[in-house]
C-alpha cells in the first residue's frame, strides 16, 4: 500500500534554516544538513528546502548546500525558491535534488512547467501554489511569496499546471499558514479531487489531528509542516504512530 507522506519543510537563507510565520518574522531553526539528517532518521518521508535568498551569489551557496544535503541524507528531497529557467533546474538536479518546485516563475511563464517536464520528466516537477481565500475573490493564486494576487482561480490553475506536466502540487493556504489552526481542508480537497497527480497540503498544521484531517477528509497525499517540527512541538515518529492508529497508511 502506498503510504501518505509526512514532509518537514526547511526555509533556507544564507545556508541556514529559517521559518517565516505568515511569511514574516523569521527565526533561525538550525543547520539544514544536520536538521535534514535528523528528520530522515526520525522517519520523515521526504524533505522540502525552499531557498528564500534573493541574490545570485546566495543562489550559488544554495546549490552547494543542495549537494551537501544529497551527500548526507538517504530520502528524497525537493528544492524550490527562485527557479526561473531550465538551467537553474539542471544545476539543482545535478547536485542531487530529486525534485524541484516552481511557483512564481510558472505563473509568469506557464510554458516553463512543460519545458521542465519534457526535459527532466514530470516526476521531478512540483508546482507550488500559494492560495488565499477572500469572500470577494474565492480561492485565488498568489505570486511572489504570497504578495501579489493573480487572476488564477486555484483549482483551475492546479488543473492547468498538471496538464502542462507538473507531477505534483504543493498547495499552501496563506489563510492558514502560521495559524496552527489546521490545514485548509476545503481547498485542499477540491484540488486533490481536481487533479490526477499527488497533492501536498501545507499551511496551518498545529496538532496531530490536523494531519489526520487533511490526509483523510481532504484526501491529500502528503502533509507538510515547518516550525511545528523545527521547534520540536511535534516529533515525526509520534505523529506517524498517531496517524497509524487513526487507520491512515504511513511508513513506520
Amino acid at each position, binding site marked *: 500500500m502506498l503510504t501518505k507522506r509526512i514532509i518537514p519543510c526547511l526555509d533556507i537563507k544564507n545556508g541556514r534554516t529559517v521559518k517565516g510565520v505568515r511569511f514574516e518574522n523569521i527565526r533561525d531553526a538550525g543547520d539544514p544538513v544536520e536538521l535534514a539528517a535528523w528528520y530522515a532518521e526520525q522517519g520523515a518521508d521526504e524533505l522540502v528546502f525552499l531557498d528564500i535568498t534573493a541574490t545570485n551569489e546566495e543562489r550559488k551557496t544554495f546549490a552547494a548546500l543542495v549537494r551537501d544535503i544529497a551527500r548526507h541524507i*538517504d530520502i528524497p528531497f525537493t528544492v524550490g525558491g527562485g527557479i526561473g529557467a531550465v538551467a537553474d533546474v539542471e544545476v539543482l538536479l545535478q547536485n542531487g535534488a530529486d525534485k524541484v518546485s516552481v511557483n512564481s516563475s510558472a505563473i509568469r511563464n506557464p510554458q516553463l512547467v512543460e519545458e521542465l517536464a519534457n526535459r527532466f*520528466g514530470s516526476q521531478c516537477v512540483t508546482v507550488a501554489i500559494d492560495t488565499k481565500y477572500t469572500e470577494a475573490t474565492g480561492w485565488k493564486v498568489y505570486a511572489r511569496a504570497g504578495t501579489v494576487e493573480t487572476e488564477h482561480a486555484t483549482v483551475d490553475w492546479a488543473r492547468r499546471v498538471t496538464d502542462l506536466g507538473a507531477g505534483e502540487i504543493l498547495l499552501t493556504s496563506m489563510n492558514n499558514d502560521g495559524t496552527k489552526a489546521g490545514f485548509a481542508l476545503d481547498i485542499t480537497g477540491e484540488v486533490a479531487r481536481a487533479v490526477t*497527480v499527488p497533492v501536498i497540503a501545507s499551511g496551518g498544521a498545529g496538532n496531530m489531528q490536523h494531519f489526520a484531517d487533511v490526509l483523510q477528509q481532504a484526501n491529500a497525499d502528503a502533509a507538510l509542516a515547518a516550525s511545528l517540527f523545527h521547534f520540536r512541538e511535534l516529533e515525526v515518529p509520534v505523529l506517524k504512530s498517531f496517524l497509524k492508529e487513526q487507520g491512515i497508511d504511513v511508513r513506520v
Partner: protein
Amino acid sequence: MNLVIVDYKAGNVQSVLFALERLGVQATISCDFETIKAADKVIFPGVGEASSAMAQLKARNLDKLLPTLEQPFFGVCLGMQLLCEHSEENDTETLGIIPEKVLRFQTDLKVPHMGWNQLHHLQTPLFEGLQEQEYVYFVHSYYVPVGPHTIAQASYPEPFSAALQYKNFYAAQFHPEKSGPAGAQILKNFLAL
C-alpha cells in the same frame, strides 16, 4: 572493485554516487563505451522520459554495448524500464534485454505512483537481509507487470514488478539510493553479487 555508474544525461547519477559513498564505495561515472565494458559491476540509473533517454544512449552507442555486458548489472527506475523491450511512454523501443513490456498505470489512483510503498514476494540475493513488507521509495508513471522475471512486487493497486532479474541483469523500479537503510542494504547486496 571497478564499479561504473552509467551517465547518459538522464540519470540521478549524483544521488547514486552519494549513496555508494555512504557505503564507503567509490564509483566511476562514465558514458564511455570501453570504461563501461571493462567494469566489474555496472549501475544504470535513470529518471525522466524513455524516448529521450534512449536517444542519449544511442548517441553514445550504449544501446549496442549494454545488451552484451556479462558482469552484474543494476538498472534503477527508468534504468529498469529501458532494459525491457518496449515502453508505452511515447511508444519507445527500448533495449530489449529483459523480455518484458512497460505499461502506463491505468488507475483512478494518483499517477505518478509517488512515495513509500511495501515490497513483497522478495527473491534472489538482492534482497538478502530484507523483510517482506519493507518500505522503499517509488516515483514513476509506467510499470512492468508481474511476470517470470519479477523478483519483488509492490501493489498500486494491482501487483506490479518492483524488481526484475534476467541473467546478470538486475533492476529495481524503486530508488534504493533514496530508500533509507533498506535501500542501502539492497545496494550493498548488489555489490556483493
